[in-house]
Structure formats: C-alpha cells, structure tokens
C-alpha cells in the first residue's frame, strides 16, 4: 500500500496554462494583409471608375466628331430629305458591320450610313428638339452608345426644318477596352499586393528578430546556459532588457545575501545555544533538565524556521540540475559518515536526467531521505533516479531512496506526513528529515510516497514534475 502526499493534483499541470494565442507575426501579417486588401480594392475601384469615365468621354468625343463630320457634308433636298456625300472621311461608316454608324433624320425622312447594312437591331433614333443634345449608353434592349444633336436647317426657301444627326458605336469595343484595362489593373494590383506582403513579412521578421532573440536568451537563462541578456538590442527594447537583467541580478544577489544572512543568523543564535546546552550538561541543579529541554525546543524551532526561510530564497528561474551527481556526492558523504557501520551505498540511474529545482533544495531533499535510510537501514542503501510517467507519456523525474531496514508501517508514515501535524512539533528521529523532504517536494508541486523496497525495507519515492 502506498501512502502518498503532495499537492500536485491541486495545481494545473504545467504547460496546460499556455494558451496558443496567435503569434505576433501572424497578427501583424493578418492585420497588414487586411488593410492592404481594403486599400488596394478601393484604389482599384477608383482607378476603374476613373478609367471608365475617361473612356466614355473619349467615346462621346469620337461620336461627336462623327456627328460633326456628317454635319459638314449634309444637305437637305427640296422635300427635306437629308443628303450625305457617298464617301465620308471616316471609312468605318462605309464599312458594313464596322460597329460605327451614323444617321440623320428630318420630319420628312432619314439617311443612315452604309455600315448599318445587315445590322438587325439598328440604333433607335428619334427627332430631337432644336439645340437638344443626347448621349446615352447601351439602352435597355439595345446595344449602342449613341450621341445625337438636334438642330434647325434653314432651307433656301427660308423654311427651317428640324434635323437630328446621330452617331452610334457598338459598346463591345468600348467594353473590350474597359475589360482589358480592368484585367491589367487587377493583375498589377495583385502583383503589388504580393510584393508588399513579402516586403512586410521581411520588415516584420526584421522587427521581430530582437524579440525572438530576447525569448531565446530568456530560454537560455532558464536552461542555465547564460546569466543575463547579452545581445546588443535596439534602443526601443533596451529599457526592457536592462530591467530584466537588473531583475535577474537583484534576484541572484538577494538570494545569496539572504543565504549569507541566514548563515550568520544561524551561527549567531546556535552558538549561544550550544554554550547553554554544554553548561547545562554539567549542572545537576534542579531545573537543569527543564532548561535543557527548553534549549532542545529552541534548537528545533530555530532549525525549522531557518530551513523555511532558506527555502524562500528560491529563484524564479531554476537551472536544470543533474540528479545523479547530487546522489553520488551524498552517497560518498554518507559512506564517510557511516564508515563505522560499513554502509554500502548504491547509486543508479540515467546520467542525463535533470530537475528544475534549486540545487541546494535538491541536495537537502535527497540528503535528508538518504540520511534517514542510512540511519534506519541495516547497512545497505540504494538511491536511484529515472524518468517519471504520467499515463503513457514520460513526465518529470522519480527519485527512489531505499533501505534494508525494518521499514515503516504505512499508517505511521501517514501520521508523520499528515497535514495538521506541524513539523515544529516533531522531534528529531521522528520524521524531522521526512517533514523537511515533504515540504520541499510540495514546494515543487511534487509527491512523496512510500512503497516496499526490493532491499527489504522502505522505499521513499519522490516524483517531481518537469517544471
């Protein structure tokens, strides 16, 4: 039966909290592409309208010139019928199916250009009032651009006859020109958009490069490969990087100052306690026993509080620490300390396994557990480290400390680790080391549990999450 403790379930699994927000590059590119799309569309629309208007004006002028060409050659006979020269200066008017037509009409009859021969749906014309001018696009059923003017023609007899001269052109030609222009326009717009997007991508990558480098350097700091952001960053980023470096340095300095202060405090408080205890040992006076017990209590309290205080020096970014060398150093130290008892320590595991735990905390955690195993075992101790598992995937690191002692009953282990039993109330040899180990494991969101050991005694299994 395994008795487990720890607060891992209460915490979110590291990594899960990281949402997959779109990257800055994606956001900027998307935003720029949208703005670019809208801007280019509006420009294209304006250019298209401008071109269409200009093309229509040109068409109107062309038709106007045809009308004036007719006007320059027209005459009316006595019946008021229009007479136009056989050969006109505009050859398209003589060419059937050319798409350019002209005509003239009076209340007495009309004339139309030879180009209209064979046209099934000729432009519809009506007699305009004198001085009236008309230009219209393809009509509802028709397919012509028409320009016409209405005027009065004075006959030799002094009569004034209403005359309307018109010119029409097949819109196919006009529409072809517009469509050709539109095709060119959009091709160039898309090409420009692509070029602008590529340029933007290059610019964005250049702009984001320092930020990418910051992230990379922070990752390296986290991995313990560097202590500060060292690259020469652009002026705009320098306040950020300088402050980050200052923060890291302050944290580092604070941690070491704090540790030194704690060491001094421990020395300053414990040495007088040592004097008191040593003096009391020689005393037989009444009350010496009580005072001695009080010294013990003060010592224990002091130890607990100093250990807690030491743990608050933990840094935000812990370098990964290789576990096996720590276990080996402890094994050598314990073998030296317990040389009289011929302690045999075996250390096993994967050389490359690391944990992101303060190096001192890891030493403290394993030291307490291994020392307990050495104390309560019969002379054999095994410390091993392997990769942990979470379901079917690898997750964190497991450290196993085993002894060949009589073992701890699961119930007693549960009591020792039960919440509500303050570490301060425990006495040395009654799980103080275990309590320290437990607190450390919990501080790193790990778990500590008890399983039977292959060596015959107890195995304490520490599971530490990846971060």
């Amino acid at each position, binding site marked *: 039966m395994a008795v487990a403790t720890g607060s891992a379930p209460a915490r979110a699994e590291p990594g899960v909290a990281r949402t997959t927000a779109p990257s800055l590059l994606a956001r900027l590119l998307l935003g720029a592409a949208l703005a670019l799309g809208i801007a280019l569309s509006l420009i294209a629309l304006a250019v298209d309208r401008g071109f269409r208007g200009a093309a229509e004006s040109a068409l109107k002028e062309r038709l106007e010139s045809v009308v004036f060409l007719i006007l320059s050659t027209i005459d009316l006979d006595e019946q008021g019928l229009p007479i136009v020269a056989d050969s006109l200066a505009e050859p398209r008017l003589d060419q059937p199916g050319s798409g350019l037509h002209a005509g003239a009409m009076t209340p007495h009859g009309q004339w139309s250009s030879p180009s209209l021969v064979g046209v099934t749906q000729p432009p519809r014309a009506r007699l305009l009032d004198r001085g009236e001018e008309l230009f219209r696009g393809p009509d509802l059923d028709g397919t012509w651009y028409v320009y016409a003017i209405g005027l009065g023609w004075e006959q030799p007899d002094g009569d004034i006859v209403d005359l309307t001269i018109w010119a029409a052109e097949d819109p196919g030609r006009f529409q072809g020109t517009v469509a050709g222009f539109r095709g060119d326009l959009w091709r160039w717009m898309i090409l420009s958009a692509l070029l602008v997007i590529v340029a933007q991508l290059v610019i964005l990558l250049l702009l984001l490069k320092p930020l990418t480098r910051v992230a990379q350097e922070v990752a390296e700091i986290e991995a313990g490969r560097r202590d500060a952001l060292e690259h020469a960053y652009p002026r705009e980023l320098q306040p950020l990087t300088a402050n980050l470096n200052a923060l890291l340095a302050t944290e580092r300095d604070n941690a070491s100052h704090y540790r030194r202060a*704690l*060491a*001094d405090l*421990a*020395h300053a*408080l*414990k*040495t*007088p*306690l*040592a*004097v*008191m*205890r*040593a*003096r009391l*040992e020689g005393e037989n006076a009444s009350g010496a026993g009580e005072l001695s017990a009080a*010294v013990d209590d003060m*010592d224990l309290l002091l*130890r607990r509080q*100093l*250990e807690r205080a*030491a743990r608050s020096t933990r840094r935000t970014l812990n370098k990964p620490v290789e576990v096996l060398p720590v276990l080996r*150093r*402890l094994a*050598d*130290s314990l073998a*030296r*300390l317990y*040389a*009289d008892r011929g302690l045999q320590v075996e250390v096993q595991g994967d050389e490359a396994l690391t944990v992101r735990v303060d*190096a*001192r905390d890891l*030493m*403290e955690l*394993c*030291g*307490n557990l291994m*020392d307990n195993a050495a104390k309560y075992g019969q002379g054999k101790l095994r410390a091993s480290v392997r990769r942990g598992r979470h379901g079917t995937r690898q997750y964190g690191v497991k450290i196993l400390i085993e002894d060949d002692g009589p073992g701890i009953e699961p119930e007693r282990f549960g009591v020792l680790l039960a919440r509500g039993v303050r570490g301060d109330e425990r006495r040395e040899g009654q799980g103080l080391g275990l309590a320290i180990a437990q607190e450390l494991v919990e501080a790193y969101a790990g778990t500590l549990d008890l399983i039977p050991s292959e060596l015959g005694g107890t195995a304490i299994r520490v599971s530490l999450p990846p971060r």
Partner: protein
Amino acid sequence: MRILVIEDEEALRELLGRALKREGFATDLAADGTDGLHYATEYPVDLAIIDLGLPGHSGMEILREVRKRGLKYPVLVLTARSDWQDKVEALELGADDYVTKPFRLEELMARVNALLRRSAGHASPEVQFGPLHVNLSSQDVRLDDQLLELTSFEYKVLSYFALHPDRVVSKMELNEHLYDEDADPDSNVIEVIIGRLRKKLDPNGDWQPIETLRGRGYRFRAGQG
C-alpha cells in the same frame, strides 16, 4: 592525544577545552581562523574540531589548507547550519564528521573518540593487544580480564600507543601529543610513566609490550604477547 579546537565563541571554546581535558586529551584552543590555521598546520594535532563560521579564515579554508598540506588527522566540523550542501562540501574538503550546534557534549566526545579510533584503523572501541584489552570509549583497560587501575596520564600514554601500534614514538612526540601547549613537561616524567606502565601491563616481564629504542624512543608491540 592532542586535540585542536578552533571556535570563536569564547564560552563554547573554553567549555570544549575543559570537557576534552576531563576526557584526558591535551588541547590547543584557537579563537579565530588565523590562529586556527597556524595551529592546524604547524602544531602536532591528532584531531581538530573546527567551527565553520570563523573570523579570519573560515573553517572551510582551514580544512582545505590542512588537506592541501597532506595532513591526514581527522577533522570534526562544528556547524550552525544543518544544510546538506554545507555538510557535503565540508566532507568533500576532507572533514571526517560534522556536529550541528547546539550539540550534546556527550555526543561530541563519542564522535571524537570514534574518529580517533577510526583514524588508527580500529572499527570497534575495544582494541586488543595480546592479553590486553583497551576500551577507547569507556577508557577501561583489562589485562587477562582483570581491570587495571591506571592514572590519567598512564592512560593517555597507553591510548596513544594503542592508536599508534608498531610505530617508533619519540619522547618529544609523546610530549607534544600528551601535554597542553602551555605545559612545561619534565622529560623524566615520560620515562617514569613508561616504567609504571610496563609494570602494570607486564608484571611478570614475559610480554614486554613497550620496547625502548635507544636514542629514538619507544615502540608498542601490538602483535606480541
């Protein structure tokens, strides 16, 4: 045996000195790291008790220097911090054991005796030389199972021999290791003590455990008897 105590807290240093003397050890007391380093490297020392937090040179520096100079006597470290990091560092530098303050004198003495014994290659506090049994912990000396009455100084000499058997020990060495720094021993005293010890250890004269080597000193013959 001569024990060096390097501790800056005067009261504790004096207490340790007195307790060690009561146990029959000669002591040198140093109040800071500078004096401590001098004693530790220049004086004959059988065991050193070094506090880690010292003014002048730290306990770790003294330890490093002692081992660097090839001095192999056991070192017991006194530390106020109970961190494993500190303990492991001290042990890696060559300390043999550590005691966390505040400690019990009794426990400290047991550790001192165990270290002295271990450094002489004895796993158990009970050492046997022929018919002679010396318990380095309880300081009982038995010859053929009979408890021997020894004076404090006789025991000091015998325990020194017991921890350095089959080795030539000069009178000077005995003086150095058995007397305090400020004592002014008369060289005849050693001869008188050796004479008394011979009578007590070998009343019939058939074992002769202490050999005199003229002009060189004495040799305790562990294998005989």
